[in-house]
């Protein structure tokens, strides 16, 4: 078996450039073309996605965002009873708060919200005819008047 060490092969390296048994120029041109196409594709990708600045925040490398959780206030009286004083948030309980605490400072809204009713879901017609009947003022039932009318009817029938 013919063997050559790395050093022997390096010694046999010619100083001048030899002509290969294939079209080296064509091969190099093909590789250059691939590199150009790859560069164009990369530019297009950056243009579409805004480069690395548009990357979504990785949940793996960063910790969770810090959220300050306030501890609930618990007071203990002399008998040892603990009272939990939950902080009321402005979500639906405003009416109770207003009625209970007259001295509390009234906060004036800085912004005015203009709410337009959705015309598509409103209707001039009542939703249920039964509700109208219920809402209409009804005459109070008079038992004597009823008896009278029944007698009249009977009389009429007898006639």
């Amino acid at each position, binding site marked *: *078996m*013919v*063997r*050559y*060490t*790395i050093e*022997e*092969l*390096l010694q*046999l*390296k*010619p100083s001048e*450039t*030899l*002509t*290969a*048994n*294939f079209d*080296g120029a064509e*091969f*190099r041109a*093909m*590789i250059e073309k*691939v*590199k150009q*196409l*790859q560069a164009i*594709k990369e530019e297009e990708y950056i243009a579409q996605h805004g480069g690395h600045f548009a990357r979504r925040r990785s949940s793996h490398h960063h910790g969770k965002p810090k959220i300050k959780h306030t501890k609930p206030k618990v007071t203990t009286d002399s008998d040892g009873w603990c009272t939990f004083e939950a902080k009321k948030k402005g979500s639906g309980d405003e009416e109770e708060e207003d009625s209970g605490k007259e001295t509390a400072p009234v906060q004036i809204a800085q912004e005015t919200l203009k709410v337009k009713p959705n015309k598509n879901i409103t209707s001039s017609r009542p939703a249920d005819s039964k509700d109208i009947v219920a809402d209409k003022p009804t005459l109070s039932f008079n038992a004597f008047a009823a008896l009278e009318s029944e007698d009249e009817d009977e009389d009429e029938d007898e006639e």
Partner: protein
Amino acid sequence: MSVEEVSQKFEETVSVSDNNEPKSVLSDSQFDVKHPLNTKWTLWYTKPAVEQSESWSDLLRPVTSFETVEEFWAIVQNIPEPHELPLKSDYHAFRNDIRPEWEDEANAKGGKWSYQVKAKRADIDELWLRTLLAVIGETIDEDDSQINGVVLNVRKGGYKFALWTKSEDKDPLCNIGARFKQVLKLGDDDHIEFFPHSAANAKHHQPSITL
């Protein structure tokens, strides 16, 4: 161009040069005695896919063949060095007409010694050249011709070197692996891994030998 076409073209080139009387050092004109290699080698190139329609068979092509040291150097001088290659390119140098694929009969029962250079190293061209020289000079495998070929993958994460063998026999492979580490100038802390081709399709492809 198929392997047969490359071989035919190569033989034509060789036969033309054989007709001329070989010149020696004592000749007045240029010295052109060639140093034969143990076997013929074929250089393959995997072109990176630039269109989705391109398949593996379209991308993998034989570039040329060589069977002397002088022909090898002529090729090396005329092809881009590893650092010049675009990403997802591969160079393969395989013995005779062995295709650089697991499916090839010569590779089916073998595997590969693999090492990945993770950083973009300045000496990557030198390491690839040393690997090629050790393989074609047959010094990486002194006991038996276990080596079928050598592969270089150019990837985003770095360069991957692989030495393809015809068997999974542990003893000869360990000798080859130890020499492969020397060729790649690796220290004791660096490890190369042997992956048998038979397990290449497995989900968690684990190396059978680590050196």
